[in-house]
C-alpha cells in the first residue's frame, strides 16, 4: 500500500478555486468542481477547503452517498443530531449547526474573524433533497464558502443543479492528468525517476485518471511488476486492453480476501457505519486490512469511530439486490435496532434498510419511520413509507399517517380517497377522528363546505366535548368559506376565549378569525390574533406547518381595507422567517409560494408587469404536484385581474375561464368577491364596461347581504373606477364601518365623480396613491381630466394628464377604460364604444345584445348612429376608427 499521494498538476485549478472563494460581497463564495469518477475531485476539494479562508475559519466536510440519499438530511448526520419540536426548522437547525448562531440570532459573525465558515460537499449529486436544499441555502444566502464536487454525467438534486444553472457559483470541470503530470505524480509517489516509456504506458492505460493510477500502482508494486532497476522505476506489466475504471475496481476488489469484501459490502449497503456496528457484521481485523489497502476511511474523531468507503465507486460495483446483500441489510438493520437512537434519521435509515432486506416487513417500525420522515419534513418519503406500512398490514394507523402526509402537501383529492375508504372501515371514536380530518380536508383544501358540514353533523357526537371543540373550529372555517364573516368571528372568538387544549382547533379558529376580521374591516384587531397564531406554530409541532397559510391569510386580510403597508410587512416577515423552509415538503413549492405572496403585494400596488411575472412564477410547479389548489386559484384570479388592468383582454379571459370550472361549490361565497373583481376587469379589458359595472354592483350587493363591508368597499371602488356615478351614498356609509385607508378614499372618489368635480377627483387620486393603490389613483386622475375638459379647464386637465401619465408608467402599462377615455380622442358615446369594442372581438349583434342585456335592435341602433357620427360605411371601418385609425 502506497500511502503518500501528493497533489500534482493542479496548481492552476487551485488558483482558480482560491479566487472563487475570495469573491467579493456581490456574489456567493465557492465553486463547483465537476469531473468523471476518479479524476481527483475529492482530493482537490479537500485541499481547497483546508487552504481557503482565514486560518481560524470553521471548516466542515460533508459527504453525499448513495445509501444515505434515502434519509432526509442524512448527509448532515454529524452536524445536527438533536432536533427541536418544529419540523419546519430542520434546515435552519442544520444551518445553525454549520455556521453557529449567537444569542441574538446573528449568524456567523464574530469579531475575531473566526465567523467565516467553509463547507466542502463531496459527491453533491448523491445528496438527499433536503440536504441539497440546505447547501442551496448556504450558497444563495451567502452564509458560507461552499466547495462542491459533482460527478459528470450524474443527475444531481434540483437544488444543486440550480446552483450551477443560476450561476450562483462558477463550475470548474476537472480534466484527467497529462503525461508530464502523471510522470511527475508517479515519481513523487515512488520516490525516484520513472522510465519515460513506462510513464507513457501508465498514462495511456489509466487515461490520466488518478484513482485508476492509484489502484494500478498499488497492485503492480505489490506484485513486483513495478520495480526499481539501476535507480529507475520500470513497469513489466503487459496489459493488452485497459478495462474501464469500474471493471478494474471490481476485479481488484474480487482479489481482496473475503472478510475485506464483507466490510466493503456492509458499507455498500449503508454508510457511514460505526466501528462497533461494523464489527458485529464483519471481521474487525478485515476492517484494519481494508483501511491499509486504501479501500475504506476511518474517522477516529467520532466516538465510536465511523467508517466510510474510500471512494463511491467501491460501493457502486458491489451494490446488488442479491439474496446475500438482502441478508446483509437485514443483519445491519437488526444491529442498528439494538442501539437506542433518538435521531429520527436513524429510524428512517433502519426502515429503508428493512424494506430492501430479507426481514419480514415490520409495520410498527414503518409507522414510526413515517412519523420520523414527517418530522424531517420529507413528505414524499413519509407517503412511501406509509404505503409500505399499509401493505405490511399496519392498517388504520398507517393510513391516518398517510392522510397527514397528503394533507400537509394540500393534496386534497388524494387525501379524500384514503379518508373515504377509512370512513367505511371504522366506527366509534376512530370514525369521529376520520370525520374531523375529512371535514378539515373538505372545508380548507377542497372548498366543499356542504360535505364538510355533513361529516360534522352526522359523525361527531354532541356529547364528545373534545371532538366538538375541533368541530366548532371547523364550523368557523366553514362560515368563512361561505362568507359569513360575522358568525365566524363570534364562533372563533368563543373557542379561543376557552383556550382549547387542542392546538389544531386553536389554529383553525385563528385562521377563521384573521380572515373574517379583515372582511369585516376590523383590521386593527388582525395583528394580535395573527401573532398568537405564529406563537402557537412556534411551540406546537402539530400545527407548525400551518404558519405558512396563516401568513397568507394575515397578509390577505388587509387587502380589501387597503392596509397595504401592514400587508407588505407581513409578507416581508414571513419571507424572512421561512427562507429555509421547503413548503409542503418541496423546495419548488417554497419558491412558488414566495412568488405568490409577492404577487399579491405587486397586484395590490398596481405593479402590473411585476405582478404578472410573480403570479406566473407562482404557478411554475402546477404540473409537478396536485397540491396548492387555493394558491393556484388565487394566482390565476390575480393574473386575470392584472391582465385586465393592462388591457390585455385575451390573456385576462384565458386566465379567468378555468376558475369558473373550479368553483364547484355554490355555497362557497367567501371566495366570490375576488372572483367578481377579476371577472369585471376581464370584461373591462374586452370593452364591455357596463357589464363590468353590473358585475361589481351585483357582487357588492351580495357582500352587503353577507355582511362583509370591506369587500363591499373594494367592489364599489372598482365600479367607481369603471365610471359608475351611483356608488357614493353607500360608500359614505361604509367609510364609517370599515377601518383602513381604502373606504374614505373610495367614498371621496365616488362623491367627486358624482359631482363631476375635477379637483375632488384629483384629491381622491392622491388618497389612493398615498396608501398604494396606483391603478385606482390613475383612474381617478383620468376621470379628473374628463371632468376638467367638460368644465373647459384646459390647464387643470393638462396637469391631471401629467399625473395619469406618471401613474400609468408606475403601473407598468395600465390600460383601463378610464385611462383610455382620458388619453384617446372620444368620437363615440360610452355605449357606442362598448358595442364596437365587442364587435371588434368578433361578437355578432345578437351575442353583443346577450352580453349587455339589451335587444338586438338596440345594438343595431347604436351601431347605426355611431356610423353616422364618423361617416363610416362598414363595421370594419367603425372598429378601425375606435382603435384610432
Amino acid at each position: 500500500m502506497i500511502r503518500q499521494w501528493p497533489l500534482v498538476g493542479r496548481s492552476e485549478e487551485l488558483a482558480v478555486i482560491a479566487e472563487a472563494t475570495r469573491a467579493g460581497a456581490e456574489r456567493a463564495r465557492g465553486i463547483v468542481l465537476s469531473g468523471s469518477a476518479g479524476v481527483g475531485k475529492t482530493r482537490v476539494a479537500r485541499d481547497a477547503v483546508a487552504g481557503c479562508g482565514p486560518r481560524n475559519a470553521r471548516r466542515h466536510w460533508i459527504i453525499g452517498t448513495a445509501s444515505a440519499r434515502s434519509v432526509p438530511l442524512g448527509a448532515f448526520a454529524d452536524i445536527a443530531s438533536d432536533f427541536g419540536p418544529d419540523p419546519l426548522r430542520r434546515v435552519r437547525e442544520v444551518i445553525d449547526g454549520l455556521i453557529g448562531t449567537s444569542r441574538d440570532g446573528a449568524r456567523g459573525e464574530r469579531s475575531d474573524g473566526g465567523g467565516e465558515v467553509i463547507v466542502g460537499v463531496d459527491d453533491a449529486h448523491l445528496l438527499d433533497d433536503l440536504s441539497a436544499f440546505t447547501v442551496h441555502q448556504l450558497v444563495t444566502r451567502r452564509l458560507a464558502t461552499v466547495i462542491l464536487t459533482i460527478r459528470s454525467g450524474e443527475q444531481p438534486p434540483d437544488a444543486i443543479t440550480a446552483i450551477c444553472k443560476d450561476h450562483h457559483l462558477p463550475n470548474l470541470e476537472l480534466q484527467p492528468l497529462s503525461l508530464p503530470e502523471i510522470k511527475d505524480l508517479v515519481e513523487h509517489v515512488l520516490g525516484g525517476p520513472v522510465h519515460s516509456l513506462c510513464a507513457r504506458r501508465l498514462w495511456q492505460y489509466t487515461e490520466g485518471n488518478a484513482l485508476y493510477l492509484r489502484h494500478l500502482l498499488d497492485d503492480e508494486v505489490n506484485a513486483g511488476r513495478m520495480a526499481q532497476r539501476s535507480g529507475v522505476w520500470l513497469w513489466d506489466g503487459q496489459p493488452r486492453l485497459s478495462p474501464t475504471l469500474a471493471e478494474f475496481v471490481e476485479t481488484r476488489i474480487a482479489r481482496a480476501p473475503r472478510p475485506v469484501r464483507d466490510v466493503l459490502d456492509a458499507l455498500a449497503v449503508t454508510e457511514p457505519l460505526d466501528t462497533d456496528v461494523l464489527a458485529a457484521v464483519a471481521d474487525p481485523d478485515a476492517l484494519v486490512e481494508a483501511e491499509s489497502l486504501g479501500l475504506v476511511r476511518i474517522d477516529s474523531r467520532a466516538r465510536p469511530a465511523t467508517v466510510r468507503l474510500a471512494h463511491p465507486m467501491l460501493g457502486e460495483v458491489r451494490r446488488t439486490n442479491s439474496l446475500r446483500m438482502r441478508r446483509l441489510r437485514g443483519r445491519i438493520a437488526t444491529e442498528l435496532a439494538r442501539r437506542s437512537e433518538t435521531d429520527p434519521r436513524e429510524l428512517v435509515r433502519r426502515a429503508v434498510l428493512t424494506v430492501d432486506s430479507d426481514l419480514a416487513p415490520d409495520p410498527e417500525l414503518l409507522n414510526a419511520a413515517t412519523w420520523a420522515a414527517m418530522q424531517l419534513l420529507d413528505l414524499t418519503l413519509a407517503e412511501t413509507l406509509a404505503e409500505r406500512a399499509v401493505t405490511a398490514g399496519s392498517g388504520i394507523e398507517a393510513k391516518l399517517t398517510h392522510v397527514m402526509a397528503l394533507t400537509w402537501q394540500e393534496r386534497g383529492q388524494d387525501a379524500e380517497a384514503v379518508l373515504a375508504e377509512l370512513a367505511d372501515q371504522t366506527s366509534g371514536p376512530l370514525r369521529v377522528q376520520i370525520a374531523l380530518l375529512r371535514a378539515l380536508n373538505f372545508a380548507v383544501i377542497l372548498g366543499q363546505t356542504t360535505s364538510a358540514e355533513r361529516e360534522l353533523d352526522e359523525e361527531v357526537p354532541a356529547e364528545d366535548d373534545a371532538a366538538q371543540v375541533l368541530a366548532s373550529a371547523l364550523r368557523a372555517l366553514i362560515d368563512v368559506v361561505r362568507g359569513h364573516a360575522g358568525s365566524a368571528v363570534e364562533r372563533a372568538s368563543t373557542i379561543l376565549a376557552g383556550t382549547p387544549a387542542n392546538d389544531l382547533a386553536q389554529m383553525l379558529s385563528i385562521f377563521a378569525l384573521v380572515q373574517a376580521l379583515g372582511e369585516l374591516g376590523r383590521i386593527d384587531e388582525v395583528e394580535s390574533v395573527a401573532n398568537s397564531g405564529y406563537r402557537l406554530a412556534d411551540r406546537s409541532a402539530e400545527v407548525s406547518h400551518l404558519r405558512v397559510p396563516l401568513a397568507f391569510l394575515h397578509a390577505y386580510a388587509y387587502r380589501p381595507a387597503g392596509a397595504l403597508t401592514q400587508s407588505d410587512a407581513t409578507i416581508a416577515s414571513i419571507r424572512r422567517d421561512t427562507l429555509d423552509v421547503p413548503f409542503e415538503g418541496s423546495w419548488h413549492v417554497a419558491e412558488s409560494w414566495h412568488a405568490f405572496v409577492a404577487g399579491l403585494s405587486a397586484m395590490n400596488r398596481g405593479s402590473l408587469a411585476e405582478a404578472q411575472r410573480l403570479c406566473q412564477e407562482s404557478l411554475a410547479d402546477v404540473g409537478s404536484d396536485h397540491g396548492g389548489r387555493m394558491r393556484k386559484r388565487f394566482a390565476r384570479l390575480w393574473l386575470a385581474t392584472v391582465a385586465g388592468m393592462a388591457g390585455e383582454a385575451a390573456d385576462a379571459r384565458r386566465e379567468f375561464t378555468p376558475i369558473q370550472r373550479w368553483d364547484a361549490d355554490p355555497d362557497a361565497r367567501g371566495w366570490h368577491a375576488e372572483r367578481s373583481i377579476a371577472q369585471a376587469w376581464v370584461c373591462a379589458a374586452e370593452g364591455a364596461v357596463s357589464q363590468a359595472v353590473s358585475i361589481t354592483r351585483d357582487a357588492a350587493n351580495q357582500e352587503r347581504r353577507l355582511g362583509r363591508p370591506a369587500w363591499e368597499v373594494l367592489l364599489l371602488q372598482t365600479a367607481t373606477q369603471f365610471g359608475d356615478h351611483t356608488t357614493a351614498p353607500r360608500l359614505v356609509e361604509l367609510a364609517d364601518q370599515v377601518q383602513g385607508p381604502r373606504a374614505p378614499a373610495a367614498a371621496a372618489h365616488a362623491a367627486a365623480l358624482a359631482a363631476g368635480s375635477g379637483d375632488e377627483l384629483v384629491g381622491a387620486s392622491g388618497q389612493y396613491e398615498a396608501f398604494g393603490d396606483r391603478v385606482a389613483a390613475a383612474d381617478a386622475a383620468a376621470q379628473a381630466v374628463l371632468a376638467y375638459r367638460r368644465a373647459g379647464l384646459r390647464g387643470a386637465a393638462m396637469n391631471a394628464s401629467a399625473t395619469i401619465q406618471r401613474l400609468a408608467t408606475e403601473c407598468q402599462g395600465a390600460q383601463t377604460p378610464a385611462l383610455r377615455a382620458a388619453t384617446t380622442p372620444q368620437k363615440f358615446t360610452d355605449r357606442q364604444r362598448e358595442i364596437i369594442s365587442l364587435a371588434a372581438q368578433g361578437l355578432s349583434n345578437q351575442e353583443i345584445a346577450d352580453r349587455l342585456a339589451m335587444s338586438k335592435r338596440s345594438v343595431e341602433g347604436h351601431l347605426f348612429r355611431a356610423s353616422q357620427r364618423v361617416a363610416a360605411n362598414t363595421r370594419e371601418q367603425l372598429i378601425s376608427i375606435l382603435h384610432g385609425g
Partner: protein
Amino acid sequence: MPTDKPRTKYLRRLPLPYATALRLRDAGIADEVIAERVGVDLDALATFMRVAEAKLAAVAFEQPPT
C-alpha cells in the same frame, strides 16, 4: 503571453482538452462548439478556459523559448 510559434509548442505539453480548447479559440471558433468539442458544459467553459490559459502560462514559464 507566449508568441505564436512557442505557443504551438507549449500547447503540446498541455492536457489534450485544454490544448484543444485553446486551439479552437485561437481559430475563432464559437464557445458553443468549443464546449461541445471538449465535453464541457457551456456554463463551465469560462472557468475551463481560464485554467487552460493558466496552464499554458505555467508551461511557458517552466520552458522559456530558447
